């Protein structure tokens, strides 16, 4: 079950780095999605951990309407699963395929008619299994620039103490706020 805590995401065009212990990251994901939807914002989830089909069932159990959500799924093909295409989901063959992932993000951002959009990246920590920190940092910088230029909000989920100090300091520079899920609130970054 998701945590009852409601994260207060205060601005529609800010970028957040959200940290949680490994056993709380799924609860943080659900809490963040609920918050995005409550602001009438369209979430785009980049999932590098759960396949779309499973994510849809998990969200449905939490009362989240999948019709309002777009997903970029990087793991269904990676797991040998069947990619059932529909307008709400785009598939990338594996999380390390940054070229396709970048193209898909760009396409989806153009395709979604809603004015208020928010990308949620779940999660940076799992992403680092597939690509080295330096490459991840460059890619995330590319995503952040794209979001900033389009005035779109972005939320990067991450396991606390799960980032190399170099990437953490770089990401801290990219984002507007760092949120500690366990503290149940928003901390202004130093």
């Amino acid at each position, binding site marked *: 079950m998701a945590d009852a805590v409601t994260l207060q995401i205060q601005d529609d065009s800010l970028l957040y780095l959200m940290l949680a212990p*490994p056993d709380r990251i799924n609860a943080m994901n659900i809490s963040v999605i609920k918050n995005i939807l409550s602001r009438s914002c369209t979430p785009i989830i980049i999932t590098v951990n759960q*396949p779309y089909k499973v994510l849809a069932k998990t969200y449905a*159990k939490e009362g989240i309407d999948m019709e309002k959500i777009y997903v970029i799924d990087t793991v269904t093909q990676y797991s040998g699963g069947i990619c059932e295409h529909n307008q709400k989901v785009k598939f990338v063959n594996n999380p390390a395929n940054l070229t396709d992932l970048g193209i898909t993000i760009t396409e989806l951002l153009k395709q979604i008619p809603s004015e208020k959009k928010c990308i949620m990246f779940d999660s940076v920590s799992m992403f*680092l*299994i597939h690509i*080295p920190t330096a490459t991840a940092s460059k890619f995330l910088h590319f995503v952040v620039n794209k979001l900033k230029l389009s005035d779109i909000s972005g939320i990067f989920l991450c396991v606390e103490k799960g980032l190399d*100090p170099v990437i953490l300091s770089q990401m801290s520079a990219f984002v507007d706020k760092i949120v500690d899920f366990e503290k149940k609130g928003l901390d202004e970054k130093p």
Partner: protein
Amino acid sequence: MDANPIALDVIGLPKEKIVGNICHDFICPAQCGQCPITDLHKTIENTERLLINAKGEKVPILKTVARASMDGKDYLVESFVDIRDRKKAEDRKIALIAYMGESVMRVNKPLELTKNNLQSLATQVSNGDYDAEDIRMQIQIQANNIGKIAGNLKELADKFSEEREEIPEEFRQFFIGK
């Protein structure tokens, strides 16, 4: 007044081009009036300093300076050791430690996440909300991820074994304790 052949070699100039010159901004980076010995009255004994060579490069040295008096005239006797290799080894050590830290980070937290994902899978199997294909996909993802993590560990091990000969003695001691 004089310089020995090793000093000439490190500085990269013949004796005649050194003797008679003022050291400030020539072989010593200190500004005129800021000599650590004669102006600032500091002691330099096995201290890390910089020497400017003929190419204008700053060479790290370990330096000791003693005062000497000959025929009523004061001299500074400077002896130094070129520590460029040691500095290079230290830089490499820092890089290796950073590389190791990053690699461990790419193993440690993902493994914790994988453990949690597997625990969550166990719950999903028992509550019956997910079909066999859902479970299979997730198990396959976790298996692939563990494979990737093992690959990252192997990459780290290869990195160290490839460059084992280059790892400085003190660094090896740090790692294996002998």
